């Protein structure tokens, strides 16, 4: 079955971020790459939006209950003198997405997913690096139906969010909006489902451990 992704609420999301991950995002403990994949999932999932909103309320309650730390006597006056130069915040104007790419992701892509400038990596696989901080990287991957990434395990953590199409591995099937979490305990070989290209947002906190010799050599060149 082909599931089309619609912004706001993708239908039939079966794989959500864990409570621990949502809580880390709500608390501000996730790094930028993991934050991006959680926020992009939330753009597609009303259930996780509600969960994070509730977690932020917990943050508000905790803030309210903290013992106040006194400020210098001059602090308020110093703030008041800055008010005249503090202009009201204006949300930047953006052209609306034509294909339903979540805004939070468009900010990193510089536009819509359908306009993305993919880099080819063989006949069936394309990728687009978004950014890298230390060993953590965020990238987009696009595989034609039947594409195999290649059997691998993990040095660190791997987060994969399906944006279009779907893939299947030993743990199950993933469609638009589904988020897969993998770490050192999982060895898998994801295969793109038939029907349409599978487009994923992928975040890894360390390079993947490929088993095939060619991929072992090519992996680092492409930033995997």
């Amino acid at each position, binding site marked *: 079955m082909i599931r089309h992704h619609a912004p706001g609420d993708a239908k039939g999301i079966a794989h959500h971020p864990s409570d*621990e991950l949502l809580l880390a995002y709500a608390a501000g403990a996730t790094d930028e790459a993991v934050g991006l994949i959680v926020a992009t999932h939330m753009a597609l999932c009303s259930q996780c939006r509600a969960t994070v909103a509730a977690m932020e309320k917990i943050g*508000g309650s905790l803030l309210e209950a*903290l013992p106040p730390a006194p*400020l210098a006597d001059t602090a*308020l006056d*110093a703030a008041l003198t800055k*008010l005249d130069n*503090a202009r009201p915040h204006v949300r930047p104007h953006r052209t609306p997405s034509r294909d339903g790419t979540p*805004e939070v992701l468009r900010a990193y892509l510089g536009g819509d997913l359908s306009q993305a400038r993919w880099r080819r990596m063989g006949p069936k696989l394309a990728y687009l690096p978004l950014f890298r901080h230390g060993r953590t990287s965020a990238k987009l991957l696009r595989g034609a139906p039947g594409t195999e990434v290649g059997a691998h395990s993990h040095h660190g953590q791997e987060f994969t969010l399906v944006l279009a199409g779907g893939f299947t591995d030993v743990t199950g099937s993933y469609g638009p909006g589904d988020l897969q979490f993998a770490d050192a305990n999982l060895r898998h070989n994801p295969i793109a489902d038939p029907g349409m290209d599978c487009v994923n947002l992928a975040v890894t906190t360390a390079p993947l451990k490929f088993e095939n010799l060619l991929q072992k050599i090519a992996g680092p060149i492409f930033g995997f």
Partner: protein
Amino acid sequence: MNPPGDAARLNALLDRVAAQRDRAAFAELFAHFAPRVKSYLMRQGVAPAQAEDLAQDALLNVWRKAHLFDPAKASASTWLFTIARNLRIDAIRREKRPELDPEDFKPEAEPDMGDAMALADDEVRLRDAMKHLPPDQALVIEASFFADKLHSQIATELDIPLGTVKSRLRLAMARLRAALGEMS
């Protein structure tokens, strides 16, 4: 901790800042929130002088963004928490925080006049539920919000297995969800 009327008072102050650029209302918000934001930042290891500067910045953000505050979505305290959290990520971690954009989804339902009141009730119930959490569960929730650490590091710090941290979080979240009654 605070009477329910306090939430309504803080909302009204924010409204005066947004609609009338009311400096007296701002001063009251500053007196309430700046010391709490400073306290929040110091809990996360920010030095007192920098915590004070960032607390000032947080309140300047309140002045600049008061018109974007929506009392049907969050209380003033929750809104301040998100502002302080994002400032900390900017200043201390020097990273951007990917945030959900309002354009990314249609409102779940049109907010109405009752929403802000229902929300204030929610927060009172939530605070009550937090107070009644077993101490070991309250500890991992607080550590999650104040430690700027992932749960594996919290486990190391509390000297308990990661699985125990996760199960305490799940138990705590189940209780808090039940108190809110709005999440499946």
